[in-house]
């Protein structure tokens, strides 16, 4: 075995777990990735799961990287192959020089004939069967055993696992000892049989500071609590559900009246997405902060109501946890492909504010900001998260809250202000020149401020009108408001050294984009911009103007952000080269480097011709 290539690295590897869903592997795999994190080594973990409940293949991909690269890298160094259904495919996919970990209770068939990889057999079934008799225990501990073996193989500090187990079962202490025993079983077996086989190590560092591991959806749910949302209407759909679960969990923790046990929140599972957003519109109209969350199919169904909210100027906070479309598509795969349907949702001339978080902390912050913007602008604001961000655990800075922060509830007239009004109040009158009129909440004042809200056309005083001029005034004012929005939304993050080439990315592409940039910059001078919101601020237009070639990284087929940029900023699309990943997996740095390098090479020879590069992640 000494003649073959051997992958060797410290704190830089990708480990893939191949499991069957519903088999309890998730918590074992999480135990592993959390241990890496607790060793002070940056880690990212991605769940690749099927759209069913039990019995189908599922993968868990852990990337360990001392440099803090947390995107998908591409390629697997170590395969924990414990799913018979996919074992051969998993075997084929391992990188040369990599390690194939399998349950050696059964001999590997002859078709497993690669000579360029290292086999690590551990008789998981045999070990489990000889130590446990209860079938449930067998299933659970089999997973823990392979984690123990990994601890040995990757030379990880065993105590971190022990500590994790203790924290995990702090409330069920009975379970601590058997779990540690299972870990030991694996560890010991590996030590005995596979000493010095694996050249990949994970050693303690102190690189994670005060960072946390969190799912984007949990952060968004927490953000809604901090933003003061009291009403949530929602309808289950993958991958949004955990947003609401988190919202409910944190509400139950922080929003239950101590004395009465009653709730300072109302969460209603609606009958469908139309009803969910209808509830939000009703609640926002009535002065509560309200939100809903959904994924692509829900956005399509909410489209009519989004147009109402735009035209009648009602705050709406909506989270779109994007998945692979169109239609039902791949419900458990990620994508950034709802940009156009969200930005221009609904018939007629409409435009909606979008926010693009890149990590859980931003999910939290942009949710809070989103509520402020929705109230300030009296319009729908859509948080464009995605399945990768929402449902995977990401390492990021801790959640922060400034106690001096005061909610921006926007231009709402209270009873006193209504009393003090000297001029006639008009619900749709632009008195401040920013396109944003003043609103009132039902029940505020016995005499003043009542108005009629409608999706049909209305004049400045909210009266129904079929006068084309009044209609045109209103629609034109909404463009003034749109201009105001540009000044209020989070600005793009720009990293510029006045290079000629610029790279633009947004959302979860950030992880891989940053890594790819680091690699590309070794040979090229490249500026970068991360877009955080739609509409675009001046800085976005300026960045594009300053570059003669722009690479625009997206996780969709049709270059939807490019459409938005070109359409809103009147940019010549010919300077934009789209780098598009559409296979439903998080985009990888490897793919980006290859694609961008290819174009740079081409450009070195002649003018750009082939503008689009569509392909899957490696």
């Amino acid at each position, binding site marked *: 075995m000494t003649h073959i290539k051997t992958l060797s690295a410290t704190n830089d590897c990708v480990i893939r777990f191949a499991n069957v869903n519903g088999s309890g592997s998730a918590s074992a795999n999480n135990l592993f990735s959390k241990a890496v994190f607790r060793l002070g080594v940056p880690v990212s973990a991605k769940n690749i799961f099927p759209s069913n409940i039990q019995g189908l293949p599922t993968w868990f991909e852990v990337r360990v990287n001392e440099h803090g690269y947390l995107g998908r890298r591409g390629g697997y160094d170590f395969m924990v192959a414990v799913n018979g259904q996919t074992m051969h495919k998993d075997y084929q996919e391992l990188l040369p020089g990599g390690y194939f970990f399998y349950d050696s209770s059964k001999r590997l068939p002859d078709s497993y004939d690669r000579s360029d990889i290292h086999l690590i057999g551990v008789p998981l079934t045999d070990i489990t069967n000889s130590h446990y008799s209860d079938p449930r225990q067998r299933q659970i501990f089999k997973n823990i055993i392979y984690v123990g073996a990994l601890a040995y193989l990757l030379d990880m500090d065993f105590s971190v696992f022990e500590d994790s187990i203790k924290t995990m079962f702090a409330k069920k202490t009975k379970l601590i000892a058997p779990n540690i025993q299972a870990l030991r079983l694996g560890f010991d077996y590996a030590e005995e049989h596979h000493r010095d086989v694996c050249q990949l190590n994970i050693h303690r560092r102190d690189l994670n500071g005060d960072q946390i591991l969190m799912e984007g959806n949990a952060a968004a749910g927490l953000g809604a609590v901090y933003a*003061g949302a009291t*009403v949530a209407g929602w309808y289950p759909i993958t991958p949004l559900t955990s947003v609401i679960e988190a919202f409910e969990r944190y509400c139950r923790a922080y929003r239950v009246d101590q004395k009465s046990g009653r709730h300072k929140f109302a969460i209603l599972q*609606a*009958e469908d997405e*139309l009803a969910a957003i209808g509830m939000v519109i009703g*609640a926002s109209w009535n002065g*509560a902060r309200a939100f809903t969350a959904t994924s692509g199919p829900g956005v399509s169904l909410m489209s009519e109501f989004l147009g109402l909210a735009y035209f009648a100027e009602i705050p709406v906070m909506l989270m779109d946890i994007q998945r692979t479309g169109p239609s039902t598509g791949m419900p458990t795969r990620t994508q950034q492909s709802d940009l156009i349907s969200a930005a221009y949702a609904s018939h007629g001339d409409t435009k909606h504010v979008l926010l693009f978080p890149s990590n859980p902390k931003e999910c939290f912050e942009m949710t809070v900001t989103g509520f402020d913007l929705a109230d300030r602008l009296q319009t729908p604001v859509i948080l464009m998260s995605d399945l990768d961000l929402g449902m995977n655990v990401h390492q990021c800075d801790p959640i922060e809250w400034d106690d001096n922060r005061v909610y921006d509830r926007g231009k709402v007239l209270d009873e006193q202000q209504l009393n003090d009004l000297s001029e006639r109040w008009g619900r749709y009158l632009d008195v401040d020149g920013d396109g944003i009129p003043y609103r009132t909440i*039902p*029940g505020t004042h016995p005499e003043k401020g009542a108005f009629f809200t409608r999706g049909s056309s209305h004049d400045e005083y909210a009266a129904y009108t079929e006068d084309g001029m009044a209609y045109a005034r209103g629609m034109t004012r909404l463009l003034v408001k749109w201009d105001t929005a540009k000044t209020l939304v989070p600005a793009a993050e720009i990293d510029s050294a006045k290079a000629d080439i610029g790279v633009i990315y947004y959302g979860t592409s950030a992880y891989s984009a940053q890594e790819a940039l680091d690699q590309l910059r070794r040979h090229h001078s490249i500026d970068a911009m991360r877009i955080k919101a739609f509409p675009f601020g001046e800085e976005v237009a300026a960045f594009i103007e300053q570059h003669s070639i722009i690479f625009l990284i997206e996780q969709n087929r049709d270059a939807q952000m490019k459409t938005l940029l070109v359409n809103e900023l009147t940019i010549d699309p010919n300077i934009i080269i789209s780098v598009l990943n559409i296979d439903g997996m998080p985009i990888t740095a490897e793919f980006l480097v290859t694609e961008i390098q290819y174009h740079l090479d081409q450009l070195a020879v002649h003018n750009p011709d082939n503008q689009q590069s569509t392909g899957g992640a490696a």
Partner: protein
Amino acid sequence: MTYVRPNFRHPESHRNAAGYSIKQYEGALSTLCAGCGHDSISAAIIKSCFDLNLAPHKIAKISGIGCSSKTPTYFLGKAHGFNSVHGRMPSVTTGANMANKDLLYLGVSGDGDSASIGLGQFAHVIRRQLNMVYIVMNNGCYGLTKGQDSATADQGSAGKRGVASVFDSIDLCQMALQLGAGLVARCFSGDKKQLIPIIKAAIKQRGFAFIDVISPCVTFNNTPTSTKGYEWVRDHLEASGTIDFIPDKTEITVDYPPGSSRAVTLHDGSQLHLQKNAQDYDLASRKAAMNRIETVKEKHKILTGLIYHNPDATDTHEKIQTVDTALNALSQDQLCPGSEVLAELNAQLR
């Protein structure tokens, strides 16, 4: 159509106990067709709110789209109104109600709005027992889009186009009963004597109160062949549960001859006095109510009046256990956990 508002004023142009004149319960001029049943229902709503001394600004009136859904503009001008989108009044009302439990929610819809595009929302708002009054102005057709049959058009009934409906009608009262409405009534827009006390009772009902008001469309569905026309309805009414509404026990001054009436007490102490023909019914039995509707239907008649009343009805807020304060009145202090708890929360995530 009332381009020039008729000079006629309701005799009680005095002020009610809350200090409001009836004018303060009125709205903009109606743009509906002259004679449209919907205008009579608006008038009954105005009168009911006046009589009940409601503060107009503590009412929210919400509707979908249709001639019927336009009516909230024509009553309670001092109340906020919301003409939402077609068939979605229930969800908007649900959200509004969740935000502020302290207003009266008056939902207005049409038979197209509720029995077709909005049937799902209609069913689910009932299932949640939202605290609201839900009025369907039922003309068996799509007035605003010029008279197509709606799903409440009876099989065989023919409007202005003369083509009889081939499909069975959906009975919204039966649906409401089955889905758990706390109060179910059917009225005729032409009979304000029956309609007004029922609207009052619905307003006083806790939880979900449903009133299906047959309200002829004079322009498209008022032919002798239409079972939703004035003529047919007048000839086929079978009143049940005729009631008087008595806001307060102490005010019961009317002398009912013994055995001629029976009182039902609502959760706030106000009472419904059931007139003679209603007293045999067990108003609180869903099964009985179902049977009664079916039986009358078999006679090709329309059962009107209060059909069902659940004195123990609850509402959504109770079910999901929200605090007493309206959620939209909670301050940032009461809602935001603040930075303090974050230390622990972040620690849990490490």
